[in-house]
């Protein structure tokens, strides 16, 4: 299966991309996706969304999902 990974703010800068498609041979969690794209440990301030909804890191991803990683938000 294939998922799209999006990154924002500081994580975009650290990882060096803002969007990439990755192939997953078997179902994994959001945290597993992070481990595939990053060489660093799981940041304490990592937030994520699946298909533009906030998600927990232990959520299983599905084919076609858009997985986003970002730091704490700061609107307004």
């Amino acid at each position, binding site marked *: 299966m294939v998922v799209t990974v*999006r990154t*924002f703010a500081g994580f975009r800068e650290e990882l060096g991309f803002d969007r990439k498609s990755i192939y997953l041979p078997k179902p994994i969690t959001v945290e597993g996706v992070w481990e595939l794209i990053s060489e660093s440990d799981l940041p304490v301030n990592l937030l994520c*969304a699946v298909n533009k*909804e906030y998600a927990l890191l232990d959520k299983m991803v599905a084919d076609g999902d858009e997985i986003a990683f*970002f*730091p*704490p*938000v*700061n609107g*307004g």
Partner: protein
Amino acid sequence: MGAEVLIEIRQQRFDPWQELARYQNESGLLPGSYGACATFVGAMRDFNQGENVREMVLEHYAGMTEKLLIDHAEALALRHDLLELLILHRVGRILPNDSIVLVAAWSAHREAALDACRGMMEYLKSQATFWKKETLVDSADSVRQRWVDNVSG
């Protein structure tokens, strides 16, 4: 519930008072129907956490931001029995004194409008997918950038 909700994420600068005049004029608000309008305007300061700020870039997660804001706006409109709720938020490059956000809630009642306006601001600060990167200038005129932490303000 006939509340109208308008969410706009905008690259261009805006004048909040002009936007309010225009929106109130063009909206479906019936004359005499609302007793209260509470608004909040957030503007960019030229200082933050003790540093001088020259400019800021506001990034967001297009698609997710709008979805979050519409869902929360509709929940607030229902909970507070609003007539109208307007949210206008800048993104992109922003200079000191620019307006960043405008929230306006119209209701028959004072408490409802005030509560909804505050509720939307709290949501924008804590949940809406925006991030701010400031360009700071120190006394020796050297320039550096930093991502803004989510702190009260």
